């Protein structure tokens, strides 16, 4: 009898211990980034472009990378949304619930989700060569939108799937077509979830380095041209940390802090949206 209780307590202790280890690894990462990043933070970091190049530059900031990353991830999010929306509507409104084709598409999107981002980078690079493009904002947007398309569409799909069938049937019985019901009823009902999916995909896009390393290149200047290389925040961090100068390495910590803050902000906004809009949903 006592042996069983001993075993129970032993494993329970082990479980609590490992939960704490996992929880504290998150706390530790955030704390370390904060401790290392805060002393190197200043206004210039977020309001100026680097002076003297990213490699040697000890002055100025990473505004070029912040703007570049936002434009790149923003563009990719828009493209990926324009692709995801029709796919998700087709899967959930036009197809029958147990359609084979739908199951295949969902399966292949799930599999695409698991493909490493460096592979999207390499694929984007081959596309780039095929179309004779240079490393540029456009090539970066293409690679990142391919990367976040499966994430966004599957996340949206899960939300749209939750819309009750009765709602759709009510809309049909009033004489609405599938397109009208899809756009005006289903989408409105799933709007908060769709917003969160878009934000999650944007967050993934802004933080990814491996897919843009070949395709977007790097630049010390702010540029909005689709055909010029563009700086991204993750790559700026990578290059800054790779220099032998401690001053520049410190800037990498500050840049990591900025990137982490952006991600935390996105995560908070996502939560607020889900909580805030819960009341507006017909259930």
């Amino acid at each position, binding site marked *: 009898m006592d042996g069983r209780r001993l075993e129970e307590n032993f494993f329970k202790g082990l479980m609590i211990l490992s939960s704490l280890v996992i929880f504290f690894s998150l706390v530790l990462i955030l704390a370390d980034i904060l401790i290392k990043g805060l002393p190197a933070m200043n206004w210039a970091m977020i309001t100026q472009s680097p002076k003297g190049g990213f490699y040697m530059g000890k002055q100025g900031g990473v505004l070029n990378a912040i703007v570049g990353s936002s434009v790149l991830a923003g563009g990719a999010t828009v493209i990926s949304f324009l692709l995801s929306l029709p796919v998700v509507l087709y899967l959930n409104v036009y197809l029958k619930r147990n359609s084979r084709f739908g199951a295949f598409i969902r399966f292949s999107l*799930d599999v695409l989700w698991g493909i490493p981002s460096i592979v999207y980078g390499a694929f984007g690079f081959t596309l780039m060569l095929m179309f004779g493009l240079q490393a540029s904002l456009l090539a970066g947007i293409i690679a990142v939108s391919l990367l976040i398309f499966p994430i966004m569409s599957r996340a949206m799909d899960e939300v749209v799937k939750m819309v009750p069938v009765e709602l759709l049937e009510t809309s049909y019985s009033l004489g609405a077509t599938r397109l*009208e019901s899809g756009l005006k009823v289903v989408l409105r009902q799933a709007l908060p979830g769709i917003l969160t999916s878009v934000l999650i995909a944007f967050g993934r896009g802004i933080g990814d380095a491996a897919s843009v390393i070949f395709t977007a290149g790097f630049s010390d200047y702010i540029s909005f041209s689709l055909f010029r290389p563009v700086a991204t925040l993750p790559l700026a961090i990578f290059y800054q940390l790779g220099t032998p100068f401690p001053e520049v390495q410190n800037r990498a910590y500050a840049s990591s802090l900025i990137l982490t803050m952006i991600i935390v902000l996105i995560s908070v906004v996502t939560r607020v949206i889900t909580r805030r809009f819960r009341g507006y949903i017909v259930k």
Partner: protein
Amino acid sequence: MNRLLKDKLAGKSMMVLTGLSGLLLFVMIAALYAKSRPILALKPISQLLLGTSWGPSRGEFGFLPFIAGTLWVTGAAVIIAVPLCLLTSIYLSEYCPRWLKEWAKPPIDLLAGIPSVVYGVWGVVVVVPIIKDRIGPWFGSFTTGYSVLAGGIVLAIMIFPVIIHISLEVLSAVKFETREVSLALGATKWQTVKFVVLRKALPGILAAVVLGLSRAFGETMAVLMVTGNVARLPRSVFDPAYTLPALIANNYGEMLSIPLYDSALLLASLILLLVTLVFNILSQLVLSRLERRTV
């Protein structure tokens, strides 16, 4: 009539888009294969995969050090992550109060959202020095800290959310009645977990582990920053390693100036794609079967 026509047209064009998205995977495989043909035509695949010398300028493309490096780092990550994640998932799903379970989800999501470069920075600043100054000397081996172990630790933390998230879903899909039957027969909670819940959830948990493994396998930036990148077969966890994704990311600059180099690197991405593809297909099959059973 106009509305019906619009409905039909929209339906058709959406179908085309959906079909295209299903083709994307095949297009990627085909494009990478086409680009790696030149090197596959010149060298037998066994020589490429099992060759140990890497010298693109001499025309030597042996991928074995990189494949071994990837396996070492991924293995280390999985060994560290799996016990911790399993115990945590069981605790969150079976033992802890409901409010704690709800509170635990946002931090796990946040952990999943942190970009890999930030993990890399953290690895360089925290993990590498600890291995160099504490763990390495403790085991009596000299190490720079940039090692398989550093990569394993950083990767383990990165795959925590993947494994925990899916394991929690799998565990919650085990019917409550099954647990009640076991408890009613006089089993303790841990016995119930061990003999009933885990046995039921095993395929799903395996799928979760394989998905985590596949994530670790393809992870690039964080690993690139902490493993030292030396193209040699690692002999211990304190040796540096060079992984396939790191190889691709590190050499994009020079690959167009040396013949066959670009082909070799795109072959490396094809290998990555195919391996993660197999892992993902297997685990998704298991998971979708589980889902169908519980619905």
